Each structure stands twice: as structure tokens, then as C-alpha cells.
């Protein structure tokens, strides 16, 4: 009846990344919809605000990099975690270890790529 010897799950690491990504998606998506879906077409956004140069300029600053890096990378973690657990919900049990490496590996790769690209800007 002891519960003290149960192996601890390491899921909290990816779950926290997943949760943070979910939070960002929930907050950011509506804002993006308003800006790009309504603001820009209707002309509420000042001309040139979303121009390539201006955005690159923003990403050139350390503050910009710091803002955008978690924004992009955490969304990958969120998506891949959901996909991985979606497999489980669909009853796919065989090769879960393989899928785990594939899903979280992809998220990790995307995170590194994001960091790399941001570094190069």
C-alpha cells in the first residue's frame, strides 16, 4: 500500500513548456487576428508598420529577440506535445518511445533553429 516508491514522472518539463505555449497561443492569437485580419485590411494599422524592414529591425534589438524567441519556440512545444498525446488518445500505443523522440526532437530542433536565426539577424 506504499505509494512512496512510485517512479516520478519527468513530464513536468515538457508539460510546463506545453502550458506556457498554450498560454501564449491563447493570448496572442486573438491579438494577431485583430491586427492582421481586421486592423490591416481596414487600415487601422499605420502604413508600413508591418513592413519587412521594420520587423527585421525590431528583431535586431536584444529586446525584440527576447520577446520573439519564447513566442515562437513555445508554440512548437505546445503543438508537438499535443500531437504526441493525441497519438495516445487515438489508441496508438506501439512505438510511443519512437514518437516521443520524433515529436519532442522536432520541437527542440525548431527551438534551436529559432534561436539560430534570431542570432543571425
Amino acid at each position: 500500500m506504499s505509494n512512496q516508491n512510485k517512479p516520478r514522472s519527468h513530464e513536468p518539463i515538457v508539460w510546463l513548456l506545453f502550458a506556457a505555449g498554450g498560454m501564449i497561443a491563447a493570448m496572442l492569437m486573438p491579438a494577431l487576428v485583430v491586427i492582421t485580419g481586421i486592423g490591416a485590411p481596414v487600415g487601422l494599422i499605420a502604413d508600413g508598420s508591418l513592413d519587412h524592414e521594420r520587423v527585421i529591425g525590431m528583431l535586431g534589438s536584444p529586446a525584440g529577440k527576447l520577446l520573439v524567441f519564447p513566442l515562437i519556440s513555445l508554440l512548437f512545444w505546445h503543438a508537438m506535445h499535443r500531437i504526441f498525446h493525441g497519438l495516445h488518445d487515438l489508441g496508438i500505443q506501439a512505438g510511443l518511445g519512437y514518437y516521443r523522440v520524433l515529436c519532442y526532437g522536432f520541437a527542440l530542433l525548431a527551438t534551436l533553429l529559432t534561436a539560430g536565426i534570431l542570432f543571425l539577424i
Partner: protein
Amino acid sequence: MSDGSGQIDILISRYDPERDDQPHTERFTVPYQHDSSVLDALLYIKDRIDGSLSFRWSCRMAICGSCGKMINGVPRLSCKTFLRDYAPGPLHIEALHHFPVIKDLVVEQAGFLDKLPEARPWLIREQEQALADGPHRQSPRQRARFASTSACINCLLCYAACPQYGMKPDFAGPALLALVERYNADSRDQGRAERMPLINAEDGVWSCTLVGNCSAVCPKGVDPAAAINRNKLESAKDYFLRFLKIGSGGAE
């Protein structure tokens, strides 16, 4: 839908381990009134048609938790499910999913019962209060924090609904994790640390993928999914903060 009375066809999944290799389905036709429950139909069959049909039941008023069955594929209490909603049928009754079938509609419940002590479902105090000191104080608001989780009748419908439990019988499961939350949320309890190993375990909250079926089928409004999700946060905090404190639960 029909609101009156009449006859309904019922298909029952039968299995007798002394004779059958596989479950098979039998058809019965039973009369029903506006207030006849699925349990009434089962009792009618047992009393008048085939006494060998086995199923658990007891209180008839949705509080003892005995009579859960799959009813048209959905786990429900048979005393609280009414034939009028399924007329003219056929209505398909099976044993609760995700548990081994003992006979007909009776399942082996050990997968839940044997895990109960792991939840430490009793009040844990650092220092037990003497009887002479009277009851602990607890405000109505403090009591309200565990009112819903303490309403669980252990009917196991949530286990029958949970795809994770179906694939992974070692998973603590919705009712057990709700029970952990019931005691952890009780202002009189000081046993959270003792319950963390179960929460933190691979078979604890982390086996839940938030499908939410458990809360959807709960006949008592317990909302185990919410209880589990609250404890994911607790477990994540515990995972990282354990390095800062002594006595956190769980083997590596």
C-alpha cells in the same frame, strides 16, 4: 423519444465464464412505464425471464455507486437512466468498459479498490487533536473547496470513460486523483506531502491527457478532470522546487 409507456427491446452482453469463451448478446423485450429505469428493466428480466442474468445494484437512488453499466456505449448509472429516453430501442447494455468482466454485467473492481490506500484517503495531521478539544474549526467557504470532490460515489463510470485508463490499467485514474484532491483541499488536512508521490508518479496525474470524458460522465458533478489539472500544476511546482526544500515526495 417517447414519454408514455410501452415495450422496449434490450440487448444485453452476456458472459458466463463457466460456459462461454466469448461474450455474446441476448435480446429481451420488456415493458416500461414513464418512470422505469434501466435497473428496473434488468430486475424485470432477472425476476421474470432469466434468473441467471448477473449485475450489481443496491440503493436505487444514485448514491451507492453499484449499478454502473455501459448503456448504448456510454457509462451510466442504470438506476438513474430511464427507458423512456431510449424507446423503442434497441438499448444495448454492457459491462463497464476497461475492467475485466467476471460474469454478464459484473466487472472486477480490484483495479480501483486495490489502489485506494495509495491516495492516503484519510485526514492526516502532524499532531492529532484530542477528542476532548472538540472539532476542528472550518468555515463554510473552506468546506466548499472540497465539496465537489468529496461527492464521489466510486461508481467507476469515469474509469470506463477514460481512454488512458483503458490503455494503461496502472493509471491511478480519475476518481482516485479526485480523492487525493479532496483531502489535499481540506483545510484540516496536513498530508499533502504524503500524497505527492502518487500525484507525481508516471501513473499519477501525468498519465492524464485531459480528454475530459471523466467529468462528462460523472453522475455527481465531481469534475475529476479539473482536479487532475490542478494537480499537474502542483506536481510541476514540486518537480522543480523540490531542489529547494527537503522532504518532497517521490523516487527518481
